[in-house]
């Protein structure tokens, strides 16, 4: 019996990889290993719906399982701790060793945490997993004094949700404006204005130097010495890649997993591992739609699209290598794989954010821009911004006006044939 395809990471990217394997004709064994006790679930509600209602459970956010992937072996609540890429094995925390034919790394991110002299645990939160969100939910009571450290998407969305729940909310961040690196000054300033109009306090250009309290957080001390009372501290200061388990192999894990344009992991020589792939937030790939730089892209559609790209490649290679297959199906698989890999993985990043009445929708790589232009509407209402780098359109974002923003996606890429 041939060794299974092993997917390490049982979240969205891993699930989509498994589905694509089946959709494109792989019939062999698939094992998916995940450190959470849950199967794949949808994370966007974690900063919104899950915090609002006790009725939101795992079942509410679980991804629907398709019949085609019903026979995937899910190894849950078990963390991969080591891999031997030469020997084609993955070792888990409980000592189990899994042999693989192809390895898909899909281990995603974990929240970066702040470090304080008074390193209290109680009253501090981060949001990445369902259990994180459920733990925070219990503390977001009306009147609770909430400090959100960090003003990115997660920080801003969580602040809005906490405010709607009746908490007293202050965002503290070192940057001048929220979500500034991605949205640029104009839209970032408008997001801040609208959050302030809803009653969220902002302390920008500051970080938190220490905590106040004995057994639990009672306050925070800012860099400038100012003290803020705090019942609940939410740390939304970015993420770290879960790639330590790949250490010791000839692979570049300095920032996620460095890959080629088809998501094969790279060796130090620049060659690639033909049977080791990265998908989702940890994949650091070059995107021919934009430039030759390799980047990780933490946007909504990347886990799905990278999972499909890898699943399809592995499934086609499996058909090409299948000694029992007829010549026709092998040659058509060969042609399909060549077409797929010549194009390479070139997704149009897509994301949105909801904060109070602000419904933001965006496509592209806004953070690359050196210039942005208001092209429709007015910034205090619904509006659309185009983002340029060196005069070339690299992204679009809108508040409202979704049908206008939607039309831009085809400007970046023709829809891939399926």
């Amino acid at each position, binding site marked *: 019996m041939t060794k299974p395809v092993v997917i390490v990471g049982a979240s969205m990217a891993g699930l989509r990889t498994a589905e694509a394997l089946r959709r494109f004709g792989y019939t062999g064994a698939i094992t998916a290993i995940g450190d959470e006790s849950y199967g794949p679930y949808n994370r966007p509600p974690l900063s919104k719906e899950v915090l609002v209602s006790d009725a939101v459970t795992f079942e509410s956010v679980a991804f*629907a399982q398709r019949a085609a992937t019903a026979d995937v072996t899910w190894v849950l609540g078990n963390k991969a701790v080591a891999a031997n890429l030469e020997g084609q094995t993955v070792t888990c925390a409980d000592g189990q060793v899994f042999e693989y034919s192809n390895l898909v790394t899909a281990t995603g991110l974990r929240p970066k945490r702040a470090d304080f002299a008074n390193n209290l645990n109680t009253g501090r939160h981060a949001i990445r997993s369902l259990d994180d969100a459920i733990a925070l939910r219990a503390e977001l009571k009306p009147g609770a004094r909430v400090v959100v450290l960090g003003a990115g998407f997660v920080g801003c969305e969580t602040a809005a949700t906490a405010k709607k729940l009746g908490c007293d909310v202050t965002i503290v961040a070192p940057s001048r404006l929220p979500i500034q690196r991605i949205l640029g000054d104009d839209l970032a300033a408008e997001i801040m204005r609208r959050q302030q109009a809803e009653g969220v306090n902002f302390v920008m250009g500051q970080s938190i130097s220490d905590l106040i309290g004995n057994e639990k957080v009672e306050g925070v001390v800012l860099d400038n010495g100012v003290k803020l009372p705090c019942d609940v501290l939410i740390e939304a200061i970015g993420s770290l890649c879960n790639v330590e388990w790949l250490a010791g192999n000839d692979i570049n894990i300095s920032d996620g997993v460095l890959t080629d344009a088809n998501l094969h992991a790279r060796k130090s020589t620049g060659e690639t591992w033909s049977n080791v792939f990265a998908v989702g937030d940890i994949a650091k790939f070059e995107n021919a739609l934009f430039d030759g730089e390799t980047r990780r892209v933490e946007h909504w559609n990347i886990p*799905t699209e990278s999972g499909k790209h890898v699943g399809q490649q592995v499934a086609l290679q499996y058909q090409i290598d299948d000694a029992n297959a007829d010549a026709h199906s092998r040659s058509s698989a060969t042609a399909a794989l060549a077409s797929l890999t010549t194009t390479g993985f070139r997704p149009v990043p897509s994301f949105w954010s909801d904060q109070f009445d602000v419904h933001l929708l965006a496509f592209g790589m806004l953070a690359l821009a050196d210039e942005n232009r208001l092209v429709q509407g007015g910034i205090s209402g619904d509006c659309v911004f185009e983002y340029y780098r060196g005069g070339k359109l690299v992204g679009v974002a809108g508040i*409202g006006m*979704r049908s206008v923003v*939607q039309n831009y996606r085809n400007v970046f890429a023709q829809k891939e044939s*399926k």
Partner: protein
Amino acid sequence: MTIKIDVDMTKCQHYGQCVFEAPNIFRLNNNDKLEYTAEADDSELANVEAAIDVCPMQAIFIV
């Protein structure tokens, strides 16, 4: 053969992610609200499944 498509409009937040994947089935109207065709030819199955995958609210179903 045809497929039947259902969108749970109590969940749908009109993000329009489905529109790109299955433009023959889903569209945003002038008020940015989702509209969709509830019955389609089998040939749309792959596109509709892709739309199901990318729906942030997981509100799309084949019935």
